[in-house]
Structure formats: C-alpha cells, structure tokens
C-alpha cells in the first residue's frame, strides 16, 4: 500500500467501502451527477433493527490498497456499483461481459455489486434482475437512491452474516491467520501448532471481528472485541496488529465520544434516529443492545438496563486515553517500514481528534511525526498532496504560520524542476492562500499606517515568488501588480541592489503590460487592489499657489458699499463651524480664475539610489472641469526635497479640490490620493475658481524703467517706464492697450495720481483724451486701442526758499542753477539711471516715472461673481489708473 488517504478520519472505521466506477462510454459530467446522487446515500438505517450502516464511496481505489482489507476492514471494497451506457440490444452481451470483468478486480473482497445501465430499452431492459438496473437516460433515473439503499441493505446482510460467522467461530483450532500483504512470506514454514501462533491467530481474528462489529453498527461489541484483541496481541508481541487493535479501540471510542464526527463538514453526519432521542452527547444508545436484548430498550429509546451503561463506561476510552492509545498504536506501526501509510493515516486521524479536543500542541507533535514518516519514493503529485494536507491540518489546529509554511512548500513542489509540466497556476493559487499565514494583505492601504510591521524578509520572499509564478503563468498584469506592491510596501527593506533588480524587472514586465489603477479580480473573494506608488517619488508637501500678481482677480467695490459677506449674522459664535475632518481641506483664501493657468507646488524627493524618471505627472482634481497639463521630471538619486510645479487650467467655475496627483513610473501609472497620505503636509486643497476675467496688456512707447517701485497696495500693480524731461518740455506718451484675454473689455477709466507730495510743483502735468479710446470699446479679444497721454512739465519756482532744497530731497535735480554739492552726489552714475547730460546750460530735468497700473476687476459675470448673498450689480468696469510718480533718486 503506497497511497495514503489523507482525508481519513476515525469514523471511517465504521464505514463500508463501495466503489462506483464507470465503464464503456460514460460522459464525465453524467457520471459525476450520478455519483453525487449515489454518494448522497451515505447512511442507511437497516430495517428491523436500529442499526445504521455508513457507506464511504470512492470512484477510484487501488486494488493494492484493497489487499489490506483484512488488516482493517474499512479498507476492503465490499460493494461495486458500475455505471455504463448501452444503446442497443446487440451491444448488451458485451456490456454484461465487461461488468463481470469489473467485478473480477475486487472479486476477493466484494460482497455484492450492481450495474446501472443507461440508454437501453426493450426486452432486455424489462427483465427483472437484482444486480442490474436499467434506465432509459441519465435524466430519467428517479429511483437511483432507492436502488442504492436496497444494495446497501444487501451488503449489510452479507456483513452481518460474516460477523456472526466469525464471532461464533470460537473453536480456536482452525482459526486462520489473517495477515497483511508484506507479512505473507514471513510466515512460511512457521510452526502452526505452537501456542504462540494460535494466540496470534486468535488475537488477529478478534481484532477483525471488532472491525466487523464496528461496521455493522455494534459499537459496544466492537469495543469488547478490541479490548480482548489488545490483550491477546500484547501477549505475543504482534506489534503491527496490536497497533491496529489499539487504533480500532480509539476509533470506536471516538465514534462514541464525538457523534458529530471529526472529519469536518465533508463527512458530517445526519443525526441518526437514535441520537435524536438521546439527550446526552456521549450516550449514544448502541443499537446492538436491541439485538442482544430487545427488552432492554424502553419506549423513549434510552436503555433502562444500567449494566450496559456500566459496561460502556468501562470499555470506552476516555478522551485522554484515546490520544495515549493513538500514540502507542503509531509507535507500533512505526516499527514496520511497510506500514508507513497506516502510520501516516493514523497520525492524521489522531490530529483530527485532537483538533476537536482543542489540544493543538499535542496535535502538532503528531503532525511533526507525520512529516518524518518515510513513504519511500513519492511521486511529485503525492508530495504536493502531502504538503497541502499537512498545511490543512495545521490550519485545523490553529497553527496558521505552520500551515502557511507547508502550503508554500506545496506550492514550490508544484513547480519543482523535476516536473516536466510545472503547474504554475496551481503554485500561484497555493501561494495566494499562504498570504494570511504570513499576515500579508495585498491591499497597500493596510501598509499606510506608520512603519511596516511584519516579517519583511519572509514576506518579501513570498512576494518574489508570487511575481515569478504569475509571470510563468503568462499573466504579466499580475506580475506588474505584485512587483508594484513589493516595491511600494517593502521599499525600506530592499537593498540598493534589490531595488535595482526589482525596478528593472518591473520596467521589463510593464513594457508588455502597463500597470494601471484597475482592480484585478482573481476570484470572488480575492481582488488585487491597485498599488499607487506613493513612495516613488515621496511627496512631502502640496501647496496650491496663488496666481501671479498681475493676474490675480480683484473685486470691484460694489455701489452699495462693502457688504459684510459672512455666513453668520453674528460677530462671534461659540459654535465651531468646522469639523476636524474639514480642516485638511479647508478653503484657501485666494481664488483661481477659469481659463488661467493655475499652479500647485509639490515638494518631492527620490528615495531610490539612482535617477528616477517620473512621467506624466499631473493633478487629480474634482469639483470643476480641470485640464491638467502633465509634467515629466527626472529626479537625481536620493535627491533632497525638490520642488515640482504641476500646472493645469480650470475650465469651469466653482470650487475645485485637489485630491492628489497621478504619476507614471516604470510604466506603471498610479493615482495617489492625498487622503491616503497622512504624511503629506498641505495647507488646504480646496480653492474657489471664479469665472474667466478679461485680461489687458498695457504697453507704452517709453522705455521701461529699471527701477521697480514698491507696490502701492496689494490690489494695485505697477510697471514702470521712465522719461526725462526738461522744464517746459512736452512729450507724448502712447499707451497701447491690448485685450489678450477672451472676454470683451467694456469700460475704461483713466485717472492720474501724483505720488509725490509736493504737488505744488506741478500744474496740469498729464492730460489725455479718452474719448477716442472709448469709442473703440467694447474691445474684442485680440484687438488693441491706443491712448495718448501728453506729459508737460512745468515747475513753479515762485518764491519758495526751500523749494530747491525740497526738490533735492526728493531727488529732483535742477541743474543750471547755482546748486550746491548734493547735486553731485545725486549725479553720481548709478546703475539704474543713465548718466545725466553734462550740458549745464540745460535748465532742469525731472525724472518722471509713469506708473501704469492695470487694476483689473470686473463684474463681467456679475451673477456668477457674487460673493455669498451679496446682491449688487456693478457697472461693468475696467478701470485703469495711471500713476505718475516722482522717483526718489537718493
């Protein structure tokens, strides 16, 4: 016997084995449909007695294993159900012949057999035969279950007769020696008359009867027989059979202690009739009492005879004893090299019992022993099976890590180099099952919480194996996902060399199958969530930037004055309006303008030991339509913080929220959401986008001044041009206004303001004619209008002593007059001013600064630009003020 049945459990000792086999042409799906229906008859209560016969069905059974049937009768094939098709009467003799051939295989042990013939009609089908059942087709066979029950009952009759036959055969002299296949040659030439030999024969027979009793549903008798067998066999040191007797004893005790079964739900039993009337879990009134003494059974089904109760308590092993006896039995089996399978199966059975008793540590000892049982040369498939079952058993006793370990070994066995066709798919599937044991979740979200906590080395190995298996499976998409996961979650544990290797293979795979953000569904319960690369590069802060000063929107004060536009009419409210959650996304106090390029600055760094190329980096936003303009960047190895500006254009107005950014690294695109990145500093990511505003570009005919004046206020911007004029001189200044936006400019206002406080110096300094310019309004996008401003300088020197002094203070130089030293000081060439003409005959000059400030503020879309409930309708204005300013030259 070489193939262990790892699914065995103690209850199997009380079952009879029936093999269901197809022959001829039987489609597999039909066969298994019928097989399922047959297998549903797993227990049959026998008429006229309260006993129950349990049946175990197999569709494959090695005849070799059948030879061990004398050793443990549940290994013996006692029934055969053959399933075949036969379409015409002329094929019938041949079919019948083959059925007999099938029976031959198990002929030595078979009690009875049946043949289910499908498809045959006519006179042959009408004949009544007990061993044949005819059905017109696979769909019309309603009484299969009934036929099987009949069949089981006939098996029972044979079993019962055998039992009685053996049990009463107490002559002793003629007791044959039962033996297992490998023993046969050992007994050649043994003295058959010795007492020792006789005792051995008796002991073995006793054990055999115990088996039969157990199968026939006579638990107490079985226990008695086993006890006697143990005594007899112990006396003659027949270790193998002693082990079997002990195991039988254990099985019978387990059946009586744990009526629910130890094999898990696969072998779960329906509560039998006798159990339903029984209150105590441990007291299952054995049906044998009925057989022995029908009077002992009272009407409520509980035995009134206390003597049987006492006997039961004595014969049945206690839960602790069961384990002791299992240990003993296994140690006896261990003495025989050829009984490896028996030993292994006994270990498995004991583990199942211990699992129910919740004695995990002892169970693990049994399993540890099972690992070392040598079954000789195992095929690869058997090895896989063995490791998987070890894993399952470890799982059963709650040793998840051990279970994962063996499952992984099984997975590796699937693709062992000796296998001609490696089962990468199976390997991958098994590897996935090990994930919980290594407390590894494939969801990167679970790793965002602080530092990594787990067995990094072991987990990394597993991930590498997953990657490799999925690649060999021919699913690069999975490889890319697993590699991304490895890189993202284990970055801190990878050495520089490993980082290089991982990224190289990632680039390699992603060239075949670019990684994305979709969820990969492997099965209903296992989905692979996307892995965004939040660490490649690492983003430290996200800051939304205001528009450049010249483009910032400016609100024109309403005609109704300043409306206080707060949400609450109260100045102070003790109720805090913002919850904590909103704090992160609180509104920023500047606005973006629809149609204008808006910027967000990220501080990033590259943790990799080589240059990192990030492609297609852009913003993820919600709220308004946003056209992101992606950037590509290349970060040097282990760079420090590196500012990156991501830009985009809002296309509609409203509130925009910057949710995160997207990148494409190593061919894997990822969407990184800020809410998943608690480490990222941000000063808020919600900003208002106001409807698009007109944009005006202003150019003058004068050269630009190199001197930038201080802005006068936040809302006013300036750019400077300079001109030098002599007193009395007039110069034309052409101001060209161009509409570079896409909105019409409807109004234009020009005012002048002299910055210098000494306005008495001037009179009517600037003059312009607005009418002509206004006639071009509204100014369509792309059009220009010119405005001519004439500058006339007239200084008034009349009678003020300190005028010159004042002028000097203000940096106005007046040459040609006897002026003292400050002039020279002033005249010193400075980088920002041209050297002044040396001609002292010239009267004077002044350095005039024309500041043109374009104050853009408009209510082009008044209704959209309303702030809160502020009801105001402004004139559509576009105002421009020109400031002239004396520049202080000192």
């Amino acid at each position, binding site marked *: 016997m070489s193939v262990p049945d790892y699914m065995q459990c103690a209850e199997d000792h009380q079952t009879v084995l029936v093999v269901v086999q197809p022959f001829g042409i039987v489609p597999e799906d039909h066969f298994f449909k019928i097989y399922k229906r047959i297998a549903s008859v797993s227990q049959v209560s026998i008429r006229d007695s309260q006993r129950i016969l349990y049946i175990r069905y197999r569709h494959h059974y090695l005849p070799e294993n059948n030879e061990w049937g004398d050793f443990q009768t549940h290994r013996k094939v006692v029934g055969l159900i053959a399933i075949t098709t036969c379409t015409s009467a002329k094929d019938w003799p041949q079919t019948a012949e083959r059925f007999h051939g099938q029976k031959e295989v198990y002929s030595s042990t078979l009690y009875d057999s049946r043949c289910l013939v499908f498809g045959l009609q006519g006179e042959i089908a009408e004949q009544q035969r007990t061993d044949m059942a005819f059905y017109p087709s696979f769909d019309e066979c309603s009484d299969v279950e009934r036929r099987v029950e009949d069949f089981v009952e006939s098996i029972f009759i044979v079993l019962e007769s055998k039992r009685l036959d053996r049990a009463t055969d107490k002559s002793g002299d003629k007791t044959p020696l039962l033996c297992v296949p490998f023993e046969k040659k050992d007994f050649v030439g043994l003295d058959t008359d010795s007492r020792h030999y006789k005792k051995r024969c008796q002991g073995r027979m006793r054990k055999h009867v115990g088996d039969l009793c157990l199968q026939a549903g006579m638990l107490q008798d079985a226990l008695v027989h086993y006890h006697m067998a143990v005594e007899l066999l112990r006396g003659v040191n027949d270790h193998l059979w002693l082990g079997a007797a002990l195991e039988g004893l254990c099985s019978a005790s387990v059946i009586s202690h744990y009526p629910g079964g130890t094999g898990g739900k696969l072998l779960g039993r329906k509560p039998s009739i006798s159990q339903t009337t029984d209150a105590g879990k441990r007291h299952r009134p054995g049906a044998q009492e009925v057989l022995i003494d029908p009077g002992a059974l009272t009407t409520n089904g509980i035995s009134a005879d206390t003597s049987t109760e006492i006997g039961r308590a004595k014969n049945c092993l206690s839960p602790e004893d069961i384990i002791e006896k299992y240990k003993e039995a296994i140690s006896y089996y261990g003495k025989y090299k050829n009984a490896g399978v028996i030993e292994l199966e006994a270990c498995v059975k004991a583990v199942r019992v211990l699992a129910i008793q919740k004695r*995990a*540590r002892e169970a*693990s000892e049994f399993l*540890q022993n099972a690992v070392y049982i040598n079954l000789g040369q195992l095929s690869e498939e058997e090895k896989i099976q063995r490791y998987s079952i070890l894993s399952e058993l*470890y799982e059963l006793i*709650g*040793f*998840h*890590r*051990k279970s994962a*370990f063996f499952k992984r070994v099984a997975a590796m066995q699937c693709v062992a180099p000796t296998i001609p066709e490696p089962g990468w798919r199976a390997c991958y599937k098994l590897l996935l099952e090990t994930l919980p044991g*290594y*407390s590894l979740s494939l969801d990167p979200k679970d790793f965002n919480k602080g*530092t990594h*906590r*787990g*067995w990094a*080395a*072991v987990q990394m*190995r597993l991930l590498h194996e997953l990657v490799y298996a999925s690649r060999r499976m021919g699913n690069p998409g999975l490889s890319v996902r697993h590699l991304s996961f490895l890189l993202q979650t284990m970055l801190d544990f990878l050495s520089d060399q490993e980082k290089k290797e991982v990224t190289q293979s990632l680039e390699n795979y992603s060239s075949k199958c670019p990684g994305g953000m979709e969820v990969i569904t492997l099965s209903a319960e296992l989905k692979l969530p996307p892995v965004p690369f939040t660490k490649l590069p690492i983003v430290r802060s996200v800051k939304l930037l205001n528009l450049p000063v010249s483009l910032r929107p400016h609100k024109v004060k309403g005609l109704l004055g300043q409306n206080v536009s707060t949400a609450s009419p109260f100045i102070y409210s003790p109720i805090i309006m913002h919850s904590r959650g909103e704090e992160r996304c609180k509104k920023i106090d500047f606005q973006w303008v629809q149609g204008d390029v808006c910027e967000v600055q990220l501080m990033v760094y590259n943790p990799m030991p080589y240059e990192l190329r990030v492609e297609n980096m852009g913003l993820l936003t919600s709220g308004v339509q946003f056209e992101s303009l992606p950037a590509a960047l290349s970060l040097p190895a282990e760079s420090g913080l590196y500012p990156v500006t991501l830009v985009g254009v809002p296309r509609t107005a409203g509130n925009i929220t910057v949710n995160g950014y997207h990148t494409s690294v190593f061919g894997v695109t990822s969407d990184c959401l800020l809410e998943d990145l608690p480490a990222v500093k941000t000063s808020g990511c919600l900003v208002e986008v106001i409807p698009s505003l007109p944009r005006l570009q202003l150019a003058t005919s004068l050269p630009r001044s190199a001197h930038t004046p201080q802005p006068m206020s936040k809302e006013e911007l300036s750019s400077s041009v300079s001109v030098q004029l002599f007193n009395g001189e007039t110069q034309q200044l052409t101001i060209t206004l161009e509409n570079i936006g896409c909105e019409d400019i409807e109004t234009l206002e020009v005012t002048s303001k002299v910055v210098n406080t000494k306005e008495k110096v001037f009179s009517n300094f600037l003059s312009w004619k607005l009418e002509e310019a206004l006639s071009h309004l509204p100014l369509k996008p792309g059009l220009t209008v010119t405005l001519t401003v004439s500058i006339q300088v007239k200084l008034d020197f009349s009678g003020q002593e300190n005028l010159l002094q004042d002028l000097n203070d203000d940096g106005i130089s007046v040459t040609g007059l006897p002026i003292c030293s400050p002039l020279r000081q002033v005249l010193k060439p400075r980088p920002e001013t041209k050297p002044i003409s040396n001609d002292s005959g010239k009267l004077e000059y002044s350095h005039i600064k024309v500041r043109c400030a374009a104050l853009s503020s408009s209510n082009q879309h008044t209704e959209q630009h309303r702030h809160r409930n502020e009801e105001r309708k402004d004139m559509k204005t576009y105002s421009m003020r020109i400031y002239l300013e004396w520049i202080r030259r000192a």
Partner: protein
Amino acid sequence: MAVCIAVIAKENYPLFIRSVPTQNELKFHYTVHTSLDVVEEKISAVGKSLGDQRELYLGLLYPTEDYKVYGYVTNSKVKFVIVVDSSNTSLRDNEIRSMFRKLHNSFTDVMCNPFYNPGDPIQSKAFNGIVSGMMVQTG
C-alpha cells in the same frame, strides 16, 4: 551556541532577528516565524490554567532535524526565541535559561532608553553586543 536569536513584539512582528551570518538567513526567519504558533498555543494554555504566576521560560518549542527552538515570553508578551544547533548536546536547559535571562535584562535596558520608541526595531549596540556574545561563545 545559539545560531539565531530573535525578539518578537507583542503583535508578533520581529523587533530584532539575528542569525549566524554563514547560513541561510531566510531559513531562520521561517523557523522563528513558525515557532510563534507554538508560543501562542503555550501562552494561551498557561493563561487559562494558572493566571498571573507563570513561568516566563517556555522550554523547547519544537525540535527540527537540525535545530532546537527555545522560547521565552516576558510579562508584556514580548517573545524571545533562541535557535540552537541540535548537535550541540552539551547545552543544558539551565544554560538556555540563563541565556534568556541575560537577553531579558538587556532588553529591559533597551526599553529604558528614553530615545527608544517601543515597537521599533531594536538597534541598540549594547543589545547587539550581548546577542553576539551568546552566538559566539558557549555558556
């Protein structure tokens, strides 16, 4: 002498693991990882029966072909695991105990360090020194 020494946090992730450099490090990771099953089982069994007074030393967790794995659990459920070579028969139970005690003392010192954040991997030089000492010389 010890071929692998590991400190495992209450939540069963490693705080410290070191093995003899000459051998396959991953193998010891597997050994220690699977030994946690037995440790957990032992703790839960003790917790039920005895209550507060329990032996910190768990004894032999399980023997493998080449190694013996010993366990020790502090009152705060931090686990120490020492793997020794099976061939080393001179090692007595008492010696293993004293090794664990030494390890425990050193671990306490690490925890006393105000700059050590409980739950972080142990990087203390002093602790490392003690471990190296146990991995090299006998006794």
